[in-house]
């Protein structure tokens, strides 16, 4: 079993026991466009494993080719931990591919669903607003993990 599938299997188990409860977070999620998942790839600059929400910040180019800081919200640590994520999951400078629901207002930020790490493993720091296990399966079944370019949008399913 390779690292990707091992991580996915672990996340599935952790998610099954831990997904309960992270639905509400500490704010509404109405600012995110939950109908789409966009892939953003770049290098980690900060991983804030903080309450009330974790945030992953990466440097990545935008549609105009300009380098920007992209920010992605995740679950509170106690929920992310149940999904196999810790404060050590992301390292500074690590290349990651983030699948997220973007902010409706177009700023470079969104709600993380799952993250493909530099070593190919998959991390699930998502809040309850995304059913990461289901989304990962969809991306794997459709070959999107291998065939999705930076900034590409994929449907998130009916919400």
């Amino acid at each position, binding site marked *: 079993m390779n690292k990707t599938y091992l991580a996915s299997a672990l996340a599935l188990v952790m998610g099954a*026991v831990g*997904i*309960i*409860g*992270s*639905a*509400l977070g*500490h*704010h*509404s*999620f*109405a*600012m995110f466009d939950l109908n789409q998942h966009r892939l953003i790839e770049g290098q980690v600059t*900060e*991983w*804030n494993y*903080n*309450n*009330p*929400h974790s*945030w992953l*910040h990466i440097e990545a180019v935008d549609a105009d080719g300009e380098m920007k*800081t992209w*920010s992605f*919200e995740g679950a*509170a*640590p*106690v*929920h992310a*931990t*149940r999904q196999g994520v*810790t*404060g*050590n999951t992301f*390292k*500074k400078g690590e290349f990651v591919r983030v699948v997220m629901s973007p*902010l409706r*207002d177009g*700023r*470079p*930020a969104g709600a993380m669903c799952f993250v493909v790490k530099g070593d190919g493993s998959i991390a699930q720091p998502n809040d*309850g*607003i995304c*059913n990461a296990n*289901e989304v990962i399966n969809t991306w794997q079944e459709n070959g999107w993990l291998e065939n999705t370019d930076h900034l590409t949008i994929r449907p998130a399913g*009916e*919400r």
Partner: protein
Amino acid sequence: MNTQRLAATCGVLIAFGAGSLTAQDRNSADAVGAEQASMSLPRVELPPRNFKTAEAHYKYLFDAADGGTEHTMATIPVWDGLWGSGNNTMPAIFLENGTLAVAWSRGATMKEGVLTTAYEEHFRQRRAEIEEYGQQRYDRLTNCEYPGMPRWLWEPYIKEFVNMPHQSWLMNDFMNETRRVYIGKEHVNIDGKHSSTGDSIGFWDEDKLVIWTKWVNPADYVRGMPLTSNKIEMVETWQEVAKADGGRQLVTQVTFYDPIGLTSPQSAVYTHDSRPDLEDIGVRIRNWECTSSSNSFKDQDGNTQFYLPGDPEYKDPRGFTDFPDVPGQSLNPIFDEE
């Protein structure tokens, strides 16, 4: 059938019917809400009489327990370890077929006459917002305002419970909200004000902890559900039970007395499940950060939004103290050093 008994009946129906959510229900509901709503629930236990006040309810239980059981450290129930919030029947008080999944989704039907006129109208507006936007757009927690009671009972974070003969400490990592229950004492309020968790007194009836809470700040039952008033009082009974799968569960039977918000007292049951699995993976309760780490705010249109890196208002929770030029003032030393 009075309102309380109707709510209790609904709660029981939820307990037995939650497993049969339709595919459409699951698609339209928040996935987590649907998951939580599928957790088993005990039956709602109504108060032994229709009390008008929490005080009358509490005193009745106190007298029925002959003044309560005087535990020592050797005999007091030990609710050790980490606990996670389970299911509850509270939404069934206010919504038809009111599971948690229904509470957070479009299409819910309000029950009429449970809330007083002003609170029912506010709840109607809140549900209308959910119909329009899919969610309640702003939650008081966004600005790090305390969720308070009764939301404390459900908030889905990690809790610890410490019982001692003179006090019980009910601790939620969420917002560092610790409830202190003063055993065998009377209510005291030398502060002359309300607070997020109010003032709680209690007694033991053998292995059952009975609590009366008052002087609570107005808040919400939970996001998407009605407001509570500054007159809400609660009588709770807490008891550990063994689940069919051998796990440990804390069952909380609660009656809400809110003469401003409710037309009559309402009862619900909440659960917490022991989570040794979380201890096994290293989860420990840390100090809850919010004012120094949350960048969400309510915008001028009433929506929740974020300050992002580069915005002047952005707070970097892993930056530096006010003295960045002094060595050792980084808030992120482990990440920085790797």
